[in-house]
């Protein structure tokens, strides 16, 4: 990577950091939402389903703007977090939040499918053998949905790596602070002579995306084989 300039290098490491945090933090929440949607019947289930999918169907700019309203310096949540020492607006943490929100529906969908594929009769069998609900989840449900979890995590990560609209609206495009790979590509394309730099970042994007895809497929295949009982 010697041919990368400091700005480009910064964009790559920042993108990885933002995406990793976005994936890690939203995974447990996505699991909970997926489980609730797949298994529980409760009032407001349709509303929750709609809320989860909102970032997928709204223009990313709108999502970014809503984030700015809520988590920005003027927003209620933003002020609260600010008083706790966590600034989101125009900060890399905000980029992670935007990426997490945008990847959330994809994650939930992948995990929900895998939860729906788990035979509840296996969970019943575990209960008759003495496993409480928590143990049933840890020893039966979780291992069986592992392929879906991995797929969901990779999807979320890939989405976070490519997120642009909501990020640039919420946290702008500050090199070293909030300039992820897509924002950097956009910035370089605005500058005369920036095309070659942009092209390098594009190549890196493709390599990272393809690598993530291949990795996830191989891990998911192995997990599926295990779960298939062969």
């Amino acid at each position, binding site marked *: 990577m010697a041919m990368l300039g400091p700005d480009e290098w910064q964009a790559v490491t920042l993108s990885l950091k933002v995406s990793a945090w976005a994936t890690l933090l939203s995974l447990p929440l996505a699991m909970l939402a997926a489980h609730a949607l797949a298994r529980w019947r409760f009032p407001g289930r349709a509303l929750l389903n709609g809320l989860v999918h909102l970032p997928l169907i709204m223009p990313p700019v709108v999502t970014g703007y809503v984030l700015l309203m809520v988590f920005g310096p003027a927003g209620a949540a933003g002020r609260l977090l600010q008083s706790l020492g966590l600034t989101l607006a125009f900060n890399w943490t905000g980029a992670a939040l935007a990426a997490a929100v945008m990847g959330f529906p994809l994650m939930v969908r992948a995990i929900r499918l895998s939860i729906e594929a788990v035979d509840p009769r296996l969970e*019943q*069998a575990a*209960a*008759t*053998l*003495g496993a*409480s609900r928590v143990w049933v989840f840890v020893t039966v449900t979780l291992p069986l949905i592992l392929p879906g979890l991995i797929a969901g995590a990779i999807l979320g990560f890939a989405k976070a790596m490519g997120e642009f609209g909501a990020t640039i609206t919420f946290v702008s495009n500050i090199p070293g602070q909030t300039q992820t790979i897509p924002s950097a590509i956009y910035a370089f394309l605005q500058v005369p002579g920036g095309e070659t730099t942009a092209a390098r970042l594009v190549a890196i994007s493709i390599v990272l995306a393809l690598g993530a895809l291949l990795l996830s497929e191989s891990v998911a295949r192995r997990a599926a084989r295990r779960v298939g*009982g062969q």
Partner: protein
Amino acid sequence: MKLTVEMYQPLDALTLDLAFSAPPGVTVLFGRSGSGKTTVVNAVAGLMKPVRGRISLGDLTLQDSDQGLWLPPHRRRLGYVFQDARLFPHLSVHQNLVYGRRFAPRGSAIEPEERVIEMLGIGPLLQRRPGALSGGERQRVALGRALLSAPRAILADEPLAALDEARKAEILPYFERLRDEVAIPILYVTHSAAEVARLATTVVVLQDGRVVRQGTAAEVLSDPSVTPLGARAAGAVLLGTVVAHHEDGLCELDAGGVRLFLPGSVHPVGTALRLRVAAQEVILSRARPEGLSALNILPGTVVQIRSGEGPGALVSIRTQAGTVLARITRRSAAALDLNVGTECHAVIKSVAIAPEDVGG
């Protein structure tokens, strides 16, 4: 320890409203498909909660709807063998077997692992995955898994129904061993008369959501008024001990002092056997028949005759070997002038006793 069940639960097609108790040994819930047998077992296991129910096992109350008591399934500790095995696909056979052990309370009496593995003959399978097992092997592992969870009772819901005849013949002896070697109650659901005849210590007959009869297998199955599967499937159970194997392939049994002959049995001399004699394979004769190819001729007395709507009649005859059920036509019953108290002979062809109807 005794399992007692009282429950009320409306279902789609019928309403379950029943009470019975299961002493140690195998209690078979017997009835046709759709009579609500599985719902009863699920209520005992805690997988469904009956509207009204009082279910207890020894001193332990599993449910008492009057007091609002309901124990969740994982705190009941009942080993459940499902019709479809339900092995955990992501675990090896050995991991499946020991799954319940970690949840058993400290100091509870667990069957030694080696003994269960040996009893079920699953030693060679331990490292395999459930996906690589045959149906019969899966069911044996499921049985072992239930046994090793330190259960207070075993529940089995038609554990053989999904298997072909050869696999059934492979598994049934394990349940027979279980009945004879394990001290806890076993509640076993089936709609197979052969399984009832071979396994049941107690039979509970379920019909239209109610218990219509409870008693020993010999009592219940020889009662012509209790035929949950219809007269065609009726048949009584005789108990006997193997006394000799003959060169021509016949096995000689002593049943209450009478000699019975069956085709080659694998059971060694001295084994106590139960055999089911299908009612439609029994011929009745007033005089002792002579010059007849059938080998088993049991003198006895008619104790009950039940004529149905159709041309048939079920006759139970008390013999020295036990009570035999015969399905004959009403015309024959009239021609022979059969009445309660009439002396007659029950004639049973040796080859009419199917190998799957004979068990230890």
